């Protein structure tokens, strides 16, 4: 169904959101509005718009990866964390999104590592192997070591 941006904003305001259910309801017609919400950069809504978009198929020239990319370049780590989480959902992960594994925020890197296990994407293994030795955060190095064993 076609959802207005205000309807999307309302449903994304929920304290707990059934993302798969909402994705099934709104469909890929919502991608332009979700891109707009991601670009608005609201700390509460933009992460959710990014994540929801990643659950949708591409439509009309707009790819959910475009919305995730908008999240990846945000100055707000909450939005970048959502982008990192979204890597687990994308059917095709463009090469530039691997940069989330080298984000300045350790939480973003952690979530990107978890996504790499769930959805091994091109370039992930090489980046993860490098993180095992070079990541500045001990818990991220430990996680990278575990992840490296799990992804081919």
């Amino acid at each position, binding site marked *: 169904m076609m959802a207005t941006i205000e309807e999307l904003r*309302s*449903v994304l305001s929920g304290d707990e959101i059934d*993302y798969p259910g909402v994705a099934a309801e709104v469909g890929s017609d919502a991608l332009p509005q979700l891109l707009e919400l991601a670009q608005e950069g609201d700390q509460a809504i933009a992460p959710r718009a990014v994540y929801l978009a990643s659950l949708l198929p591409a439509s009309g020239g707009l790819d959910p990866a475009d919305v995730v990319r908008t999240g990846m370049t945000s100055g707000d780590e*909450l939005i970048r964390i*959502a982008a990192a989480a979204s890597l687990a959902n994308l059917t095709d992960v463009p090469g530039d999104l691997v940069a989330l594994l080298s984000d300045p925020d350790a939480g973003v890197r952690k979530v990107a590592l978890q996504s790499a296990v769930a959805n091994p994407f091109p370039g992930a293994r090489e980046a993860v192997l490098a993180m095992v030795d070079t990541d500045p955060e001990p*818990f991220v190095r430990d996680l990278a070591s575990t992840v490296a064993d799990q992804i081919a």
Partner: protein
Amino acid sequence: MPLTISGAVGEANAAGDPAPNNADDVFVVQGLLNNVPVASGGASPKLVFDGLIGPKTRAAIRHFQQTALSFQDGRVDVGQRTIGKLNELAGVKCVHLHVKTLQTPNISVDTMVRTMRRVYAQAAVGVELTSTENLALPALLDVNVGGCFAGVTTPDQDSLFGNQNGVVANEQVAYMVRTTIPPLNGCAAHPAARPGAVVTQVASQFTLAHELGHVMGLSHLTTEGATCATPDRRSLMTGCGTNNIIGTPLLSEAEIATVRASSLLFAC
């Protein structure tokens, strides 16, 4: 004293000093009056839970005093017999809450707890903040909660809820984190025998009350539509965002009964 007031509610005293009638105190008195059995002087019909000292609330105070205390001055004073008797006859119970903070939320913990107290006063349930603790756990700052399904937890949640310093059986723990994966305001899924919830940095002032409502057995409203076409902005258990709530959110009679029946409440 489980449900207390900070200032008098109701009429002026004999010296003519008006009661402050602060909203939070009026909420407490209204909640208590609504939970005292009618035969013991409780309000009938129940008062609208609005924090306003109108004629119905004033009359209900007098009626209660006359029935339960054989006097009436229309005033509930701090620490005096009316508030004591209200607590006794309303059967007040208490949540024992521990707050463990990994990330300071945008809305302060104090505000969230104060708001939770106001909301649950309508169920004659107090909230005792039993302990607060700061946790330096960078690996759990952002918690994977999976689908946030009741009874199903992720390794992140299991690790987080393993932090139970000072917590005894049936006490509830709120973990203040930076974010969840996927991004939510909070998630009430918890390991067995470790009741509690995760609350994120962007939570509303009502998210804590909402999530612990889930922990105590409450579900989202079923009347709002899958895409929130008809959101209920007056109810605590709205599924359309507690940050959209107008005024002090309400609990239905059935929700109050569910909360009061929870095994996670203590004698205050």
